[in-house]
């Protein structure tokens, strides 16, 4: 039986009152006794109360920071409390906690600083829209172009970080398009990233942050963000 004593699940939540308790229950079923920190990212519903009822740590951000700021709050908490592993899991239920162990196994078996739960390494049941598939292919190519490494699922927020990555990202975490930008930042600064196939589910509740009509706009912005973040100076 694996010990989760040094691991913290980071769960960013924005208006996820309907799903957060169920996701916490499923995380605990997959990883008994694991510590969980929910970042309540300025929700206007009862997300904080729903999470507090389950006894997890709730980090109540006073206003909405966006997914990047919310995840970083959890990373800062993990760094301050000296956790050696942080697992990012969305509160909307699209990440199946049953795969957490597979991510941790991959981290233990390799020298990876971050392991991404990826939808695209193997054929999975995950069905994306055409625009999303196109965007994901473009981001993957762009990151390979600027960093020289192929990452298949650049927008997956289902990830495990080790101490080194936690400490680095607690200080510098991108806020605008955090998933692809953090990949670029980590690769550019010499961190090792591995991917592990997972299956993701349709979100239980809530609305995706990327609306259909904004897809093209987001694709262009994220592409520019990937290129620009690759130009950034290395952090000390």
């Amino acid at each position, binding site marked *: 039986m694996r010990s989760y004593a040094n691991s913290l699940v980071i769960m960013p939540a924005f208006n996820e009152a309907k799903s957060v308790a169920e996701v916490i229950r499923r995380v605990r079923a997959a990883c008994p006794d694991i510590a969980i920190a929910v970042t309540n990212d300025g929700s206007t519903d009862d997300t904080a109360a729903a999470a507090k009822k389950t006894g997890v740590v709730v*980090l*109540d951000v006073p206003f909405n920071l966006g997914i990047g*700021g919310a995840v970083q709050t959890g990373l800062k908490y993990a760094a301050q409390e000296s956790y050696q592993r942080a697992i990012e899991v969305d509160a909307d239920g699209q990440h199946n906690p049953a795969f957490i162990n597979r991510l941790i196994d991959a981290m233990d078996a390799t020298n990876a600083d971050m392991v991404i739960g990826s939808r695209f390494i193997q054929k999975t049941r995950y069905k994306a829209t055409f625009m999303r598939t196109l965007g994901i292919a473009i981001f993957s190519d762009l990151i390979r172009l600027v960093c020289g490494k192929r990452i298949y699922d650049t927008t997956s927020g289902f990830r495990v970080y080790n101490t080194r990555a936690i400490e680095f990202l607690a200080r510098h975490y991108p806020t605008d398009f955090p998933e692809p930008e953090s990949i670029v930042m980590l690769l550019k600064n010499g961190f090792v990233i591995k991917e592990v196939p997972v299956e993701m589910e349709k979100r239980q509740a809530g609305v995706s942050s990327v609306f259909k009509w904004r897809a093209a706009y987001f694709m262009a912005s994220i592409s520019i963000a990937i290129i620009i973040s690759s130009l950034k100076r290395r952090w000390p």
Partner: protein
Amino acid sequence: MTIFDGSVPPRIQAIAIFGSIALMVFVIQLIRRGKLKEGYSIIWFVMTSLMIFFSLFTSFLSKAARSLGIAYVPAALFLILIFGIILLCIHFSVLFSHYERRMKELAQEHAILKHKLESQQN
């Protein structure tokens, strides 16, 4: 044609002098009422002083315009102004990014401290 002889027409000069002095008075008023921090006023002082200087001593402007190949001298004033405004805009974007980052860090620290306080009280 008096416009293209490389000088600034008197009416435009008068408007420029009046405008830049009014702007400087406005900036001073903002500082006096405590609405503009002294630190940020320096850049405005420099800009309004430059504008007053160029509108008073138009021969400098004429020289600058001629060396840039600008026939209509007041256009050089616009060029300088637009350039200055673009620089200011970039300056503000940098400031906003800086404050956004600080605000985010405060919010995150607030969330963590709030949790620690609540867990101590229980």
